[in-house]
């Protein structure tokens, strides 16, 4: 079930009143657990089996890990959990990739290996809930949290439907304590939830999906387009991926609020970042902090000298790139960001990485925002290209410049999208919250704007095909 479908809103319309009427914590959590499985099983009921398997395994390992004081045994439990989780992820997501890469390497040396390709279906949201579970086990191992003894609470922590398929990758320390109390949303949460759902839907349907349709056709037939058209296609993809994913997160957070649950923010106006370090503090925050806490820091972080810091950055970013998908393009995407971050760390004061509010909008600030945006946009070539062949065509089209008769049209369209996405971000940036519409004091004005955006977005949804979120395939 996807958020930008009518069936989701029908589902929400049925489950919310029932949830509000349920009297106890146990009944509310049990009900949420069941509907989360229904939500997930709507894609394919078989996906639920894998989800249940990892939930059961990690629940019991988590408990044993906490009970045991013997360090050797603790390491064994941790290793078992990591191996199981990563093996599942590796098999479903990377098996064919590694086999094909191995065959390609053999072919370079003139050896032919029998072709082995399994038709594996990647369960929706696998990378998200596996990372979710790993963080739980790692936090218990580090004695940062205590495991829960209530299986329903734990299972709900894993499958809570708003965040199940594309995050934010929640932390047990934040989410579990909320689920261990009786969930009852406040009036403010309900208002905030509605605003987030409407704004998320607008971002996804009106900005993400519409720009995505241009992008899909351009990247699907690069050979048919002229240089400037392709560059605009890339810029539109930069808009699409942000609108799509931030739209999803808004709806996820908004839906969770309606159930009285607060999920972490995943985006904080990333395209207003003034340098690449700041960008990663604002983009897909739940993944970047996960990679920092469970990969970069265990590798030694920046505590083992400059050279090692760069190596750690590269490893973290390459694996972060590979997390997005089983393709060498994602490896290059991650490596490129590793290089960006290393260069930034090499030449600039590390303190600048930390987000600070822009006090005054000066020319150098605007320039640094544009430069960071360009760096990110360039890296998106590798993110969007489905193969090396596509990447090669992209670059050859840029280097063999051809002018287009539709330059003005492409420029107008791209600028319009950029202006809209930047306006939304600037509003969030200066109000300091994603629910800035609640800051409008006049109720009729607020409701007029909200209902206008909601109705027209729904009308648009009605007359077009539902497009899944980009991050579902990761």
């Amino acid at each position, binding site marked *: 079930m996807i958020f930008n479908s*009518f069936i989701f809103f029908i589902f929400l319309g049925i489950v919310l009143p029932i949830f509000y009427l349920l009297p106890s914590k146990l009944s509310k959590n049990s009900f949420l657990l069941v509907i989360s499985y229904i939500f997930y099983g709507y894609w394919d009921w078989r996906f639920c089996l894998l989800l249940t398997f990892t939930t059961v395994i990690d629940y019991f390992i988590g408990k044993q890990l906490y009970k045991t004081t013997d360090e050797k045994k603790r390491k064994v439990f941790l290793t078992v959990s990591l191996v199981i989780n990563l093996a599942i992820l590796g098999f479903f997501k990377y098996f064919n990739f590694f086999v094909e890469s191995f065959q390609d390497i053999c072919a370079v040396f003139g050896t032919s290996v029998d072709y082995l390709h399994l038709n594996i279906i990647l369960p929706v949201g696998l990378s998200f809930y596996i990372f979710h579970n790993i963080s739980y086990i790692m936090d218990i191992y580090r004695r940062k949290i205590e495991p829960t003894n209530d299986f329903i609470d734990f299972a709900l922590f894993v499958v809570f439907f708003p965040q199940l398929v594309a995050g934010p990758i929640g932390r047990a320390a934040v989410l579990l304590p909320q689920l261990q109390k009786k969930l009852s949303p406040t009036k403010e949460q309900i208002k905030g939830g509605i605003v987030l759902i409407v704004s998320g839907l607008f971002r996804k349907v009106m900005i993400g999906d519409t720009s995505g349709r241009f992008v899909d056709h*351009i990247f699907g037939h690069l050979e*048919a*387009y002229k240089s400037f058209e392709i560059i605009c296609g890339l810029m539109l993809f930069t808009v699409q991926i942000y609108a799509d994913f931030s739209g999803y997160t808004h709806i996820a957070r908004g839906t969770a609020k309606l159930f009285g649950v607060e999920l972490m923010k995943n985006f904080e106006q990333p395209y207003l970042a003034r340098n690449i370090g700041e960008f990663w503090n604002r983009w897909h925050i739940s993944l970047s902090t996960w990679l920092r806490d469970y990969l970069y820091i265990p590798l030694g972080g920046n505590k083992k000298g400059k050279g090692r810091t760069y190596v750690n950055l590269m490893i973290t970013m390459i694996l972060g790139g590979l997390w997005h998908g089983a393709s060498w393009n994602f490896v290059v995407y991650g490596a490129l960001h590793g290089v960006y971050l290393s260069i930034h760390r090499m030449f600039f004061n590390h303190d600048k990485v930390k987000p600070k509010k822009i006090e005054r909008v000066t020319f150098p600030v605007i320039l640094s925002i544009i430069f960071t945006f360009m760096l990110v946009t360039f890296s998106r070539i590798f993110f969007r290209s489905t193969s090396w062949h596509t990447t090669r065509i992209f670059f050859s089209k840029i280097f063999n410049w051809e002018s287009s008769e539709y330059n003005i049209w492409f420029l107008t369209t791209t600028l319009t999208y950029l202006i809209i996405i930047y306006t939304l971000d600037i509003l969030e940036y200066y109000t300091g919250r994603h629910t800035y519409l609640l800051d409008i004091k006049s109720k009729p004005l607020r*409701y*007029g704007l909200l*209902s*206008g955006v909601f109705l027209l977005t729904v009308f648009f949804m*009605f*007359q077009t095909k539902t497009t899944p979120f980009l991050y579902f395939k990761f």
Partner: protein
Amino acid sequence: MKTLKSIGIFLVAFALVVVFFEFFLSLCGILQPIVRIDPTNGERYRPNLTCSSLFVSEGFGLAKTNSAGWFGHDFKDLGTDDISVAVVGNSFVASRQVFYRNNFLSLSEKKTNNILAYKGIPKTVSFFNFGKEDLPINELLYLKDDLNKLNHPDYFLILLNEGTFNVVTHRYVAKYVLDSGVIKVDSSFKKSSFVKNYNKFEVFTKSSVLFLMHRVKSHLPNIWEIFFDKFYIPSKETGEDDEPAITTSLDDTNKRFVTELTKDKHVIFLLNVNPALNKELLSIIGQSYYINIQPSLLAMKKRGIDPNYWEIPDKVGHFNLIGHQLIADEITQKMLAIVLHGDH
């Protein structure tokens, strides 16, 4: 009073959102009403407009309409050294699924003229696109006669496919009808109250938001399918899963209109129909000139390349880029034969 003020503010806020959507949808070419109702001829594309077409089940097209409301350049008679070809047909000629430069007309024009220049022959061939969505044979014949009066092209290249023989109703357009065996002009659309009101409020007909509403209205029959997704069970009576019937033979009316077309010796038929219909059409066309593109398209399909397949949405529809190239090659050969050997 307070309630009225609140309602007023609510409506103003709502209107602001509508204005924003209006600019957004039209500036980004997401939804544009590209057809208008011309008081004389009926439904035509809006003149001098860059039309973007984003198809959910096909491609992404961009094309500019000329001052007469047709895609491509304005009709111009360049004298005796230039051969003008008016191409008439339905959406397969309009080719909104690809950029104008990639459609078969642009490609044929470029290829033919390049070869002529290479051979040192001081002639050029110009194709003019008179393609229009859902153009049934009676409307097609009317359009061809109308164009003949206005522009006098050297040739008409007329695309006939199965869609040409479908019955299209509820169109506000001038057309021919067969009345007791006599072909007559039917301009009754001009009397329709909708058309009269349409032209009074033409400014609103350009609105993207109203166009969105119009599209919503046209999707209303599928409301339960859209709402209930996997839970939707189509009723058997409606036969929603039935494939539309393919035209394999012509009725007398259609035969008569095709016969009428064959009377003009400047007409070259571009045939893309199934073998049964092809046989019947050829028996009517007789000694007229034609290009049969169906065998090449089928041969391509047999080689595993579907000229109607769109990879991105994974759907079959109008000609894709490869399809356009193939048809352009066929037309180029024919045009060269005409120019070089006077052979049709």
